[in-house]
């Protein structure tokens, strides 16, 4: 029975977050929290792997504040068998290195045959946690997985996209895969899944449970620090000439295209 660990992150709807230009702090009040969309594809693939293997267990894991349990409940509603919240005040303020360290300790406890994660999270957009998790574990890593062709408890054959082509790899398990959107179409939370998720108890693992060295987690374990945040430079609203007929509009536009067209 293979254990499949899926890493999830709860993120704000990133497109709605702004920087307060005066205080230079994030304005995220009223911005809805959601499961990072790429991670939903990882979860779906985990559930499909379990179905293909004819058994096993999919455990959704998230490091975050108590509210992140909501993201884990959604994972349960979408087909995960179990969920664990990695939560402690000493985990707060973690950069990717410290986050991946805690996830690696969770992997040590769960002993999965496969770890799946989204290609990146839409808030910080780093795409580093998955690769760093593989590094802490010293497991093989495959990013940008577009298809899992074959899977058995010992091995997987996957297709992944690089900038200039598609690579087909045979990988010994355990391994870490990060997935891209084309890998699948995530199923929606089912009625029975929602019912189960609502009633499920979600265990919280803290630094004692994980045997984590506090110096390696949270702010203390993070080599990088945010020196400053600020809004991106404002753009001037562009010129908007009026055009009477479509033909006139097309003429203006064609002129503009000729002017701007790259050589």
């Amino acid at each position, binding site marked *: 029975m293979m254990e499949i660990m899926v890493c999830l992150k709860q993120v704000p709807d990133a497109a709605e977050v702004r920087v307060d230009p005066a205080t230079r702090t994030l304005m995220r009040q009223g911005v809805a929290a959601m499961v990072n969309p790429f991670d939903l594809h990882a979860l779906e693939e985990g559930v499909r792997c379990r179905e293909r293997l004819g058994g096993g267990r999919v455990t959704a894991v998230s490091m975050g504040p108590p509210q992140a349990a909501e993201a884990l409940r959604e994972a349960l509603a979408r087909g995960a068998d179990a969920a664990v919240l990695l939560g402690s005040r000493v985990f707060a303020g973690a950069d990717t290195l410290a986050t991946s360290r805690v996830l690696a300790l969770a992997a040590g406890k769960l002993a999965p045959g496969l770890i799946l994660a989204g290609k990146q999270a839409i808030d910080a957009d780093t795409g580093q946690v998955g690769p760093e998790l593989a590094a802490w574990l010293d497991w093989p890593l495959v990013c940008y997985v577009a298809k899992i062709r074959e899977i058995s408890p010992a091995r997987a054959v996957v297709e992944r996209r690089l900038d200039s082509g598609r690579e087909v790899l045979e990988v010994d398990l355990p391994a870490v895969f990060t997935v891209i959107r084309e890998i699948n179409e995530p*199923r*929606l*939370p*089912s*009625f*029975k*899944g*929602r*019912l189960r998720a*609502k009633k499920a108890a979600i265990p919280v693992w803290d630094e004692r449970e994980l045997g984590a060295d506090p110096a390696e987690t949270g702010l203390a374990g993070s080599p990088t620090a945010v020196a400053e945040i600020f809004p991106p430079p404002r753009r001037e609203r562009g010129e908007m000439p009026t055009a009477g007929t479509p033909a006139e509009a097309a003429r203006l536009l064609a002129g503009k295209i000729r002017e701007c067209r790259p050589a």
Partner: protein
Amino acid sequence: MLDYFLSEEQSLMVATARELAERKILPVRARYDEEERFPHEIFRAIAEADLAGVYIPEEYGGSAGGSPIMNMCLVTEELSKICGGIALSFASSALGALPILIAGDEEQKRRWLPRMAAGALGAFAITEADAGSDPVAMRTLAVRDGDGYVLNGTKMFITNGGEAEIYSVLAMTDREKGARGASCFVVEKGAPGFGFGRKESKMGIRASATRELIFQDCRLPAANRLGREGSGFMTAMKTFDSSRPGVGSQALGIAAGALALAIGYARERKQFGRPIISNQGLQWMLADMATQVEAARALIYATARWIDAGAKRPTMASAMSKCFASDVAMRVTIDAIQVFGGVGYSKEYPIEKYARDAKITQIYEGTNQIQRDEIALALIREAARK
């Protein structure tokens, strides 16, 4: 909307159906309508979301939880808010399952219901070319032949026809006996002698398939007959008693969806420098639309709950639910077009489709004239009993 004190399960069912409708149906409804494309992948998603069996008891793989008809209505309404045509794949499948639930024996229920709960599509067939409002005039015959029957005849306007896997079909087993001479059978797609004819091109509910069923020496074992021989019309009447609130819910969902769009548009659209919703004339229109929608909902929910509680003769309430809600849907959707003005008449906006989809709900599963006959008949009977 009023608080109807839905159970926790029902609230989750509604939330599931709503998300499914918004995520899977909304993006494709216009295309499916234009292309008259049957929504197989959406019905699969409905099944994957555990909604295909909300009216089927747990022992047969469903999740009726003692309130099958209310559940069916809630899901139908929610899907219909986004697309009454695509929602019909679900509602009509339920209609096909009801005769099995009502008249099937234990073995028959075990044979077909778990498949339907898992996503096998159903359909129900009575109507024929010369037997619409007058089903007793039907010509499809089921003739005893050894330990089975041989079916011959053609059904018409069958929703989910050609697409469904499991069909509940009414046929005459003894024409002499008239209303007591019909029996109900389950016929599976692929049965020898069972084929499909012309598919209708329709004004509305275009994502739904409406097609002829053709039986040519189609042999069926007796084990496919639901209930005893001659009980077919009784089964059909009981089926309609339970299914008409479902048609009402489809109409209700269409009306509620159109109302929501009209309110949204009226707040956005500006004329004379202010949103058109600030006109009292338009406000009163919206108020009337909302009142009718809520009244339809209250009637349907009360009827559905009464049926689930074991009502013996819910015929009048069922007919009222269907008749009232479908008339409401027609008025509300036409008024919604009026709120949109010129663009409401354009196919570029979704609102005209709501009106096209609404019209059928006044016609099928008994025209609203037939519903009024039923209601009047029940009134007369009740008065005579006093």
